[in-house]
């Protein structure tokens, strides 16, 4: 019940295309859903995050769509660029139970954007 399942494991997109990565969770106590971006040789860094009281959050070319009833959320990267090539992780946590920061991560998606 603590798992977060992420798909696909790898993704190849042409420059200018839309990249879509999906995650699903079981635990309805999760109340914070971030996405992290990791470049080779670097640690993951927060990209964008959402709480379940909204269905969508957009920051530039990055959008999180959240479906509370289906217990799913996804990352959309519009106009994908070669510089977006990285590994992306979805995650979830229960901040209301004083476990803020204890993130459960998905399996990761390796995105490659071809010029």
């Amino acid at each position: 019940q603590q798992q977060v399942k992420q798909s696909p494991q790898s993704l190849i997109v042409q420059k200018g295309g839309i990249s879509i990565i999906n995650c699903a969770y079981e635990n309805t106590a999760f109340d914070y859903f971030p996405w992290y971006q990791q470049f080779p040789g670097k640690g993951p860094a927060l990209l964008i995050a959402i709480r379940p009281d909204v269905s969508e959050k957009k920051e530039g070319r990055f959008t999180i769509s959240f479906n509370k009833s289906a217990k799913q959320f996804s990352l959309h990267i519009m106009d994908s660029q070669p510089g977006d090539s990285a590994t992306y992780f979805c995650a979830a946590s229960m901040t209301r139970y004083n476990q803020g920061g204890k993130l459960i991560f998905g399996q990761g998606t390796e995105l490659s954007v071809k010029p």
Partner: protein
Amino acid sequence: DVKVTQSSRYLVKRTGEKVFLECVQDMDHENMFWYRQDPGLGLRLIYFSYDVKMKEKGDIPEGYSVSREKKERFSLILESASTNQTSMYLCASSSRSGAGELFFGEGSRLTVL
């Protein structure tokens, strides 16, 4: 600029050796974490700490221990390294009052022969 520093980027150890991975953060964060990253498995939580001298087991604590004697420093210890502990180890910190964002170090890649 906020920073989490992991002392060793690359280590090669032999089976049975004791291994110390050190992590220091300069953000005065209360929370610190050790994750292990393996391809296809994502990041899995080994141990975490919400305060000095406090520690709690994560999802995969077996074969590991931790130490937090000072607020800024969180150490991961492999008492007797085994080949299945070959992995990338990531340290992270977060503020108790923050929104939950984790700040990660650049990782320590450990190879156990």
